[in-house]
């Protein structure tokens, strides 16, 4: 449904305020949906036009049950696309609609300007439709069960992509191997005269050359040449697949890459949106009579979950903190080295650089660099952050520490690779039998073993040959292996 005249008027008003604040966005198309439609679109990850798959039904069941029992409600949804699509819930009150619109404009600004979104497909709405058409075609041709089974297998490995690949264009020759191998031998320098040879080509020089050649050969034998994080890409290029399977794998990989920046900037993106919706609402859009409703909903958004981190809260507080620091000049060598706490607490150089700084931050950072650079001990203390850990003896999670370094380290660890283990393909011809070998770079936390085994099953299905992963289980290096029939554990 299109906007009603009232909402249209609101939209124009809020859009004006958003521009006033300096936000810069794609055109925004608002659609008004009832809760069923909204839940449906939300189940599809915001795109009404996704390919058929049971997991969307699963999401829908959860969302609609949760809504029907009054446990949760989706306020807002916005798609990174040009134009941006955003959805409003029909039943929401005027205050909510205003708040959501302001929130949406900030998100759109973020999509458009943050550097990590620069490579995303801005016509994803259309692209998703194409994906649907293709997959539906395959379903009709090869049967739903077959296609769905393959999609399930691909989904199981869709976290195995190179999260930086979107921003770095890496070229790789697609499966092209030189057909005729040139056998290289150590080249001697030619002097023309035999008696010069032992001066031109002394033994250690020849040895060095031989070594270099050996290394070169070894590198060529490695396949892939260096460990490859983009496992999905590697499979597309080298797995034994039917054409339609390769196509589906590519589709899912593309969708995975499309959603990455959103996961990469969750804290910043939400913080940014909250920052500006509160700015627009409190300075401009809010009428006196709407204050209570606004305060209620705003506080709901940023309330810390008991014992957990709320990205909205953390994000907006950090942005506010940055703005304040740059307004007052609380940065740089002089401030950092000041040891007089009273002076530090009163520090204010009236620089007024805050707004400019946060716009710069929203352009150039992602969650990891954002936390790494702007999380300060003062901030952690004020926000009462802590780390928690599982205590085996009491079977409880306990507060482990309130030390700044530990909190920061834990946060960064959680954000690294979106909380997924780091895994690469190291060998596509393992044991010289065409088996696949992945390597898990162990960072102190083991893989969940039963899941790892099942994922190997999926990998084996896609690769077409046995799949292995090198990892560490309870301190012991192991290779988990699945050969199509049984799971094995080997010592490397």
């Amino acid at each position, binding site marked *: 449904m299109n906007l009603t005249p009232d909402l249209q008027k609101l939209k124009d008003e809020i859009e004006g305020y958003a521009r006033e604040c300096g936000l810069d966005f794609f055109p925004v198309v608002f659609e008004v949906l009832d809760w069923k439609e909204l839940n449906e679109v939300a189940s599809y990850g915001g795109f009404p036009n996704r390919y058929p798959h049971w997991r969307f039904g699963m999401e829908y069941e959860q969302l609609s049950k949760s809504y029907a029992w009054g446990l949760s409600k989706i306020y807002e949804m916005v798609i990174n696309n040009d134009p941006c699509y955003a959805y409003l819930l029909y039943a929401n009150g005027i205050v909510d609609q205003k708040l959501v619109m302001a929130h949406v404009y900030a998100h759109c600004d973020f999509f458009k300007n943050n550097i990590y979104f620069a490579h995303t497909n801005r016509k994803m709405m259309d692209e998703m439709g194409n994906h649907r058409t293709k997959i539906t075609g395959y379903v009709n041709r090869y049967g739903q069960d077959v296609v769905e089974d393959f999609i399930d297998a691909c989904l199981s490995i869709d976290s195995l992509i190179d999260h930086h690949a979107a921003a770095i264009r890496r070229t790789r020759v697609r499966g092209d191997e030189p057909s005729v191998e040139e056998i290289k031998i150590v080249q001697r320098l030619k002097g023309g005269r035999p008696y010069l040879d032992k001066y031109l080509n002394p033994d250690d020089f020849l040895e060095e050359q031989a070594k270099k050649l050996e290394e070169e050969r070894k590198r060529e034998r490695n396949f892939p040449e260096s460990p490859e994080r983009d496992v999905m890409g590697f499979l597309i290029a080298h797995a034994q697949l039917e054409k339609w399977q390769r196509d589906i794998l590519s589709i899912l990989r593309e969708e995975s890459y499309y959603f990455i920046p959103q996961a990469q900037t969750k804290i910043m993106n939400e913080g940014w949106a909250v920052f500006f919706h509160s700015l627009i609402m409190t300075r401009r859009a809010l009428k006196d009579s709407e204050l209570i409703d606004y305060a209620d909903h705003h506080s709901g958004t940023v309330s810390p979950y008991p014992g957990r981190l709320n990205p909205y809260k953390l994000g907006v507080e950090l942005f506010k903190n940055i703005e304040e620091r740059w307004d007052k000049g609380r940065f740089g060598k002089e401030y950092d080295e000041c040891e007089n706490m009273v002076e530090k607490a009163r520090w204010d150089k009236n620089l007024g650089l805050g707004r400019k700084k946060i716009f710069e931050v929203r352009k150039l950072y992602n969650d990891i660099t954002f936390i790494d650079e702007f999380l300060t001990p003062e901030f952690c203390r004020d926000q009462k952050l802590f780390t928690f850990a599982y205590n*085996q003896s009491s079977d409880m999670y306990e507060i482990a520490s309130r030390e700044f370094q530990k909190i920061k380290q834990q946060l960064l660890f959680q954000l690294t690779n979106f909380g997924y283990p780091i895994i690469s393909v190291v060998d596509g011809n393992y044991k010289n039998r065409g088996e696949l070998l992945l390597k898990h770079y162990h960072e102190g936390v083991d893989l969940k073993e039963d899941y790892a085994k099942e994922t190997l099953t999926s990998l084996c299905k896609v690769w077409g040959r046995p799949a292995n992963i090198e990892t560490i289980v309870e301190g012991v290096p192991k290779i988990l292996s699945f050969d199509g029939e049984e799971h094995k554990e080997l010592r490397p």
Partner: protein
Amino acid sequence: MAQKIEQDIGRFREIIRGRIKKELRKFITSSEMIGKKGKELVSIPIPRIDIPRFVYGDKQQGGVGQGEGEEGSPLARGEGEEGGSQQAGNMPGQHLLEVEISFDELAEILGEELELPKIEPKGQEEIVAKKTKYTSVGLSGPESLKHFKRTYRQALRRQIMSGAYDPKNPLIVPIREDRRYRMWKDEPKPEAKAVIIYMMDVSGSMGNEQKEIVRLEAFWIDTWLKSQYKNVDTRFIIHDAVAREVDRETFFHTRESGGTIISSAYKLALKLIEDKYNPAMWNIYPFHFSDGDNWSGNDTDECIKLLKEDLIPASNVFCYGQVESEYGSGQFMKDLEENFKEEEKVITSKIANKDAIVGSIKDFLGKGK
């Protein structure tokens, strides 16, 4: 906008119920949301299927939180785990809240898989209920059933087609041909009468665990059938060396001991049938649970004879469930299977432990029997 989520939901439900893609079943996690119904807390089951990925193991991880508390003070349960305040964790059994199971959901799922086998409409007392359903729209009918919306739409359609419609003066006048009426259909609903006779061996060789299993199984069968069939009578017989009829309460709570003469129970069941449940009028379902240890071979012969000549001909199906026990030889089930190899009406099922109960219920009541 494309409305096609129903397909995906249908697909998902079928997977959950194990109709298709059975290999996914092991990834089903039963999480729940806690909702409120009046003052009572209810659990809203949310089955989910976890797609396996390479992920970190659960407990070694830890995280960052926000709030009050000293170092070392525990977080409340559920905190620090996956999910948020709106979404419960995905590991079963981590909530301290007392919750109910949604019986509707359970019955719905059971109902798709279970039914009374071979149930037939029987007896003169059979009630044929009529149910009136408005199923379609027709061209004639009483004015009170006029379908205004359809009539109006028809008129609008006609006027647009004939060019009589003027958007500036949108006056719609239905004429006689435009009128649409609701039509109904009577659907006869034959109702069958059925009696279920539960028999349980409570002799000494049945340990507490075995009795527990039987009680559980009988309880679920009983609860489910009661919810599904209106005219179901249930009778309960317990036996050791002698049989007696008891009420439901006693059946589920008796602890006795003694020898085992199975024929005593069958005789009593036959007497019940003779007295009250004429096989011409009733669907009869005897369920017998035992550990398969009978007092003597002679009695087993007698049982077989009773079954062959009287009980089975009178019944729709005879169900025998055998619980495994340390003491029981399990001979009776073998005897039954030997004697009734060809008899479709005899269903036997072995119940090894509590986990086997569901499978055993399906053996008895599963569709396609």
